[in-house]
């Protein structure tokens, strides 16, 4: 370890010197570039749902991202991994996560995946990152925020191509302090410009500080001629949901009508905005989530506070993104900057607290009560821990099914906004393009004039210039595997195999254009189509060294959840409009 740390810089230089062909090509290409190459600002939210932003149908106040959407393009068929670091590995390398070391989450590696190539749980060094490639091409490269692709000196952001960084290496943690988020990482680890640090800036709040740091990096190098990559990987709105005190009650009472009506309301707005088809139906409420109106009034109050805090966290995030844009604008750099905004996966529906409370004798449970307060009134504060759980995650994923971790659309469909200089295609809504997170690296390289042929992702350059609607043709597929769940999409058709109890434990078939909520399984009606898609998934698995895990989070889950009802509850107003009630019991006018 000590040796590794001591000589990490040397090792990195040697590796870069003898590195991949892509690196060599990149270096050559850079010599031919001018300073007019665009800057890139890549903004990643953590666990944000598809419909949380105003511009994607949400009611949360997100004026800055909505402005980006208004002046840029929204894409509705953009796919990310079902969980965090697999997505980030694809984002950084332009290659499938099973190839680059993130075949599974480091924390979740199955016994049969241990010591297997592609399942190291860190980002393999033989796949260059977008930062390394752009740096070699003369770009300045900056990162602030969550990394989660490796802790060792050879794998931290500085070692993977970022000139400057202020990075959280872990999956999550307190947004205000060094307190970690799980027993596995009791204290968060950070790096600053390649040096490990546990010293946080004054008045640290992750969202604000990551923005401050990025603005600081850019401002310090403001006079430099070369273009830059700014990777702003926010930790929000990952749990624990925390926000400065004066933002805590910003949404008090705003969600009193509950998750069922909120989903209906979002769907109605999404239809109005053209984000989904008129005939789209919501995925059914998960069987273990009660109908909101069935709960006692007191329980509703505690339930809605979670969403109130989540919304505040998201609005704060939007505000900070606004600060970032404002800085670029005022410093005159916006005119040559392409901004991309995505989420790393679907919203988080798992709440660790109920499980911990059921087993208070475990160390993993004691971590929570020793480090956080979980009282209702402490939620959202710098010492409180709260996650908003499955009911609200389903809202964030509207109209899709399930949430983070699943390969139903709720776990893998992310909002995507691309803002280009000159406000190209301003306000357009692209529903045709079938896009994948591993396209982003090749797109940036393409736009920077750097070779990206070693990457599996497809460049969007033609699409962004308006010459093409989608980088994928009719036969191209998008496929994934996570925790034993499998999906493959070609055109409007998707085959998916979700393990029980979240899924059916067998392959299902959906037409996503007509049925984005994955409510009508067409496997029986179109067996041949399903066969074809399953074969395509097999090819994908073979090509990408997919090793299905022999242990997953779904094992035993059925025993911890109530049994599924035999039929969908007739009380569930799937997709239908209902009256909305305010705090005083009055109907709310639309």
């Amino acid at each position, binding site marked *: 370890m000590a040796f590794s740390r001591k000589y990490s810089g040397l090792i990195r230089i040697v590796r870069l010197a003898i590195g991949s062909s892509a690196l060599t090509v990149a270096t050559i290409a850079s010599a031919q570039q001018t300073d007019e190459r665009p800057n890139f600002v890549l903004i990643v939210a953590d666990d944000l749902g598809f419909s949380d932003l105003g511009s994607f149908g949400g009611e949360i106040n997100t004026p800055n991202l909505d402005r980006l959407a208004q002046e840029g393009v929204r894409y509705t068929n953009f796919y990310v991994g079902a969980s965090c670091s697999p997505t980030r590995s694809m984002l950084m390398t332009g290659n499938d996560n099973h190839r680059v070391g993130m075949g599974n989450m480091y924390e979740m590696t199955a016994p049969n995946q241990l010591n297997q190539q592609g399942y190291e749980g860190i980002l393999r060094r033989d796949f260059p990152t977008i930062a390394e490639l752009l740096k070699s091409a003369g770009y300045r490269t900056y990162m602030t925020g969550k990394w989660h692709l490796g802790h060792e000196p050879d794998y931290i952001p500085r070692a993977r191509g970022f000139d400057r960084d202020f990075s959280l290496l872990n999956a999550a943690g307190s947004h205000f302090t060094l307190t970690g988020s799980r027993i596995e990482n009791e204290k968060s680890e950070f790096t600053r410009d390649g040096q490990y640090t546990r010293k946080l800036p004054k008045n640290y709040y992750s969202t604000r500080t990551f923005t401050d740091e990025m603005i600081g990096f850019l401002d310090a190098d403001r006079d430099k001629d070369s273009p830059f990559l700014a990777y702003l990987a926010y930790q929000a709105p990952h749990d624990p949901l925390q926000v400065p005190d004066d933002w805590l009650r910003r949404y008090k009472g705003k969600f009193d009508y509950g998750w069922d009506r909120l989903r209906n309301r979002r769907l109605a707005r999404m239809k109005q905005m053209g984000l989904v088809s008129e005939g789209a139906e919501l995925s059914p409420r998960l069987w273990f989530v009660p109908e909101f109106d069935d709960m*006692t009034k007191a329980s509703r*109050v505690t339930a809605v506070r979670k969403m109130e805090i989540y919304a505040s966290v998201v609005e704060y995030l939007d505000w900070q993104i606004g600060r970032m844009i404002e800085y670029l604008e005022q410093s005159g750099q916006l005119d040559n900057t392409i901004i991309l905004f995505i989420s790393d996966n679907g919203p988080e529906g798992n709440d660790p607290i109920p499980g911990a409370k059921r087993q208070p004798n475990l160390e993993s449970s004691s971590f929570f009560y020793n480090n956080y307060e979980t*009282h*209702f*009134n402490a939620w959202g*504060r710098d010492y*409180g821990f709260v996650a908003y759980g499955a009911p609200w995650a389903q809202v964030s994923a509207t109209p899709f099914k399930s949430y983070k971790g699943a390969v139903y659309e709720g776990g893998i469909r992310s909002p995507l906004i691309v803002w280009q200089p000159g406000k190209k295609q301003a306000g357009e809504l692209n529903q045709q393009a079938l896009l994948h997170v591993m396209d982003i690296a090749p797109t940036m390289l393409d736009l920077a004039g750097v070779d990206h042929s070693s990457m599996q992702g497809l460049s969007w350059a033609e699409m962004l210039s308006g010459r093409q609607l989608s980088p994928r043709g009719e036969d191209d597929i998008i496929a994934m595997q996570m925790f034993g769940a499998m999906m493959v999409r070609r055109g409007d058709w998707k085959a998916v195999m979700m393990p029980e109890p979240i899924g059916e434990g067998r392959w299902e078939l959906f037409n996503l254009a007509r049925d984005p909520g994955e409510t009508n399984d067409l496997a029986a009606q179109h067996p041949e189509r399903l066969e074809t898609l399953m074969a395509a998934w097999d090819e994908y698995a073979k090509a990408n060294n997919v090793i299905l895990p022999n242990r997953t989070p779904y094992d035993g889950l059925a025993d911890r959840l109530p049994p599924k009802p035999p039929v969908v509850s007739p009380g569930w107003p799937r997709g239908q409009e209902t009256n909305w009630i305010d705090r005083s019991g009055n109907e709310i006018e639309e």
Partner: protein
Amino acid sequence: MKLIKLSIAALLLAFPSAAWAQYEGPRVDWPLPRMTNVVGVTYADADANAAFTVLNRVEPEVEIESNVFILSYTRSQPIFDRTVHWQLQMPIGNVDTDSNLPIPAGRSFRDGVGDLTFGATVNLIGAPDLPVREALRYDLDTTVGLGISVTAPTGTYESDEVLNLGSNQWSARVSVPIIKSLGDWVPGRRMTLEVKPSVRFFGNNSNSFGETIEQDPLLALEAHLTRDLTKDAFISLDYNLIEGGDQTFTDSSTGMLVEERDGPGAQSLGFTFGYTVNENLSLFVGHHQTIAESSNPFELRGSLTTVRLTWSWHPVLQRRSDFQD
């Protein structure tokens, strides 16, 4: 739904039952959920130069020991969408003195009931009507209330006795409880500054040893700095000031002035410790001592130790709790 139980219990923890003539204690004016009921019993042990329940006859150089239980019932029942606490209370117990100093004739021991007090405190700023669901998410920041109470001369009283539990006079009190939260409104972390100015107006006591006692309004200022020690316990530093209440004694039959006395002006310092035993039962212990003695011979001097138990319940939450049990 333990969460709800805890929240309500925390609010109830401090609810009042004790009410010394001018002193009520910390956290008694925290807004309660609508329909909350609190029954309390306070044992007060006072050693002072006045009977615990009566402030119209301070006797210099006399030590009177009061052993009084105060029974109280409080209900939170809103009016016009504002939180209102209605309260009824009655002292019962004895007062005693073993002093051999010359005091007016009479017995040195009296027992019986004190005067009945009925009052209401309406919150004007900061705490609207709080049904359970609103009480749960209520974050106290600043509240200002208006309290009015009337004390009727129903207590045991004999005109030829110095020691009485009843006062033989009507009185009415107007108070303005003000609460400012100084920290996060999270059990275990709450901190408040509470100030309550009040004024009590007295009717005449028309017969005390054949004299009529007229008493000027008595001004009081009660202040508490409270802090949670844990989710279930708090400590309070208490300060109390009383001023005014000058007395005029006239012969009841002739109307001639007999005597004029300064009021029982005094300051006291003390502490209160509160503990929530369970979701219904709370315990409070306090001790207060007068300070800054002046040359006024009729100044109230002494100490007061109280132990209070309250039993609180809310019909909805109670049913829920019973069901869960």
